[in-house]
């Protein structure tokens, strides 16, 4: 299947400084795609190239095989990491302004925003000034303005920062719901737990290079040490142990050995490395 976004050999330099060096990757449609990397790796630059804020020095980005046009940009929703609002503006005016800049008519914007305000339970904020909002409240408003025009591609840069656990969960559910509805989501985050939980595929960028890209499960398996965690009971009582899978064998071989030894297996789990560990391993190895 043709990817929604294809980056071909994208490079960007600011004078002497190289921010991206020949990055090629595919972002499949209808998936949540994690864009990972340490601070300053070039993630933001790549995002800005995808939504055409910045023009690449060389290489190109394609949307369904076509160069990115104004129409495409209008169908992207972008929540930058460093995000802000006009402090002196009213919440409703602000939301209307941003929605209209995305090409919605005043009426469409009003209707869609009302719906979102009800969904997020923030109806009474419409006439408030932005400066009266707490950080979490402002984040909610920003999330709404990112998705209100029903974008087919959403780029969310650290969407959970600034949220309490309850609201972070609300956003998590919204992201999954939007995916259900067919949207493609690029999720840039340092929160590896949410990557494991939400992302279908990832790309890891470090020092302006692409380090790895692919499915999350696939990568975790690839970097796994092939261990299993078992709990079993024998004559001496209950034990918990991590056992290696023999070279060339499968996890079943471990199980067979245990059962053959007359042990009662209570739990058995293939040990997958955490994304966190893979991240650290790949970034520090470079």
């Amino acid at each position, binding site marked *: 299947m043709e990817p929604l976004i294809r980056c071909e050999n994208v490079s960007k330099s*600011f*004078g002497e400084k190289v921010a991206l060096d020949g990055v090629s990757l595919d972002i499949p449609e209808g998936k949540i795609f994690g864009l990972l990397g340490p601070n300053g790796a070039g993630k933001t630059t790549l995002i*800005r190239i995808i*939504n055409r*804020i*910045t*023009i690449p*020095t060389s290489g190109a980005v394609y949307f369904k095989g076509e160069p990115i046009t*104004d129409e495409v*940009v*209008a169908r*992207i929703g*972008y*929540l*930058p990491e*460093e*995000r*802000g*609002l*006009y*402090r*002196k*503006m009213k919440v409703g005016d602000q939301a209307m*302004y*941003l929605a*209209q*800049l*995305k*090409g919605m008519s005043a009426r469409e914007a009003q209707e869609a925003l009302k719906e979102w305000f009800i969904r997020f339970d923030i109806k009474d904020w419409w006439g408030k000034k932005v400066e009266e909002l707490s950080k979490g409240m402002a984040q909610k408003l*920003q999330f709404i*303005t*990112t998705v209100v025009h029903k974008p087919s591609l959403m780029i969310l840069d650290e969407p959970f920062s600034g949220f309490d656990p309850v609201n972070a969960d609300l956003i998590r559910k919204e992201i999954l719901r939007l995916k259900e509805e067919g949207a493609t989501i690029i999720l840039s985050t340092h929160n590896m737990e949410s990557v494991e939980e939400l992302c279908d595929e990832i790309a890891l960028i470090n020092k302006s290079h692409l380090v790895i890209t692919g499915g999350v499960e696939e990568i975790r398996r690839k970097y796994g040490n092939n261990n299993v965690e078992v709990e079993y009971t024998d004559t001496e009582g209950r034990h918990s142990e991590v056992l290696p899978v023999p070279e060339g064998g499968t996890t079943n071989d471990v199980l067979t050995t245990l059962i053959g030894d007359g042990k009662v297996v209570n739990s058995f789990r293939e040990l997958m490395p955490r994304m966190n560990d893979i991240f650290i391993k790949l970034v520090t190895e470079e």
Partner: protein
Amino acid sequence: MNLHKLGIIIGREYLNKVKKKSFLIITFVAPVVFAALCILPSLIMMGAKEETKKVAVVDASGLVLPTLENTDVVAYYDFTGRDVDSLKTALDAVGMDVVLDISPLDSVQRTVTAHTYSAKPLGMETSQIIENRINDAIETYRIESYKIKDLDKIMSEVKSNIHLVSYTVDDSGKESISESSVYMVISMLLGMALYMFIALFCGMVMSSVIEEKSSRVVEVLVSSVKATELMFGKIIGVALVALTQFLLWILLTGAILAVAAGIVGKDKIAALTGGGNPTEMVQQMAPGVNVPGMDVADLGTLLPAADTTAVAADSTAVAEPTGMEAIFSTLGNLDYGTILLAFLLYFIFGYLLYASMFAAIGSAVENEADTQQLQIPVTIPLLLGFFIAIYAFKAPESQIVFWGSMIPFTSPIVMLARLPFGVPTWELILSVAILIGTFALFAWMSAKIYKVGILMYGKKSTFKDLWKWLKQK
């Protein structure tokens, strides 16, 4: 450019600024101040005559006292022979306001010294009158001492008081009276107004850019619209704010003056203001113009009866237009259509040129405090324009003024200052064309800097950075 989005940006910028309290206050308070400036000085001059000062004169010379005559302002009482020191402390007791102590005549220098003592300081008018009287008395004494027959008469005949009447002559030989002080004042007002407005509204553009950058709203915006659309939307939005303000100022000032005219009486206001504040300024600046007693309801015609203190009551002087008439005549001869058109053109393009530069500077910084250094090369030409404009109303034909009115960074201010003195049409057209061309060039360059600048955080930007951004593809 997506015009629809540009419109949305302009709309937000405009409404946001126009709804601000500070805009409303300035818009509604300034006309009151303008109108007050028009009316008040004259009202004060008319109504607030100083109370008559009672002066106790102790004249040891015997020369001054006989020549003193009471006026509305000063009444003299003879206290000669009394002790000055005791009088000083007992002014209230004798019912006097001032002691005037005149020394005996110095027979060598043939002069006297004079002092006044009073509880409250003397007003300028009062002390001027007293001083003049003493001088007159001493002069009369000296003239008489020559013992030449009729010398005082000869002296008064010799005295001269000429007012220079200037005409401008065009090719067809048509003469129009020109009072250079009028040109100077109008020229100064126009130059100053343009400088102030450009500085004010460009500052507005810059802080608006900085606000978007420092509040980090800008990255969301440029993901929806092009950076150039954002920049020009902002510049145009503020320009509309400026034009709205001008319009409201003119309407409100007019309305207030009209209402004031209704209350005070039309003739008086017309006489007081001469139909607009420039005249008022002229009245204050041009010495020898007696405002209170004047009747100038009919501005267009020359008024032989106008009372000007400077002109001697000499029958030959009446045929020549006198100071006040010259002023009104000059005002009547100004080409207001051209001035208004030029004001709008130079304001709009001068503003656009500077606003695009200020937008570029705003894009390079994260808060207003950091603008100082980057602002210098932009504010200096603007200031220079202002200084050349000052020169323009002193010497409108000089080389520096000509070049100042051609160079686009100073031309809006300098050309406006030149305008009342008359500028050839080709110079006007050339100057506006250069200005528009330069604006186009600088708008393009500023947009390039702005595009990169608004997304640059952290490091404080320098000119080197701006130059790099300009060259970036």
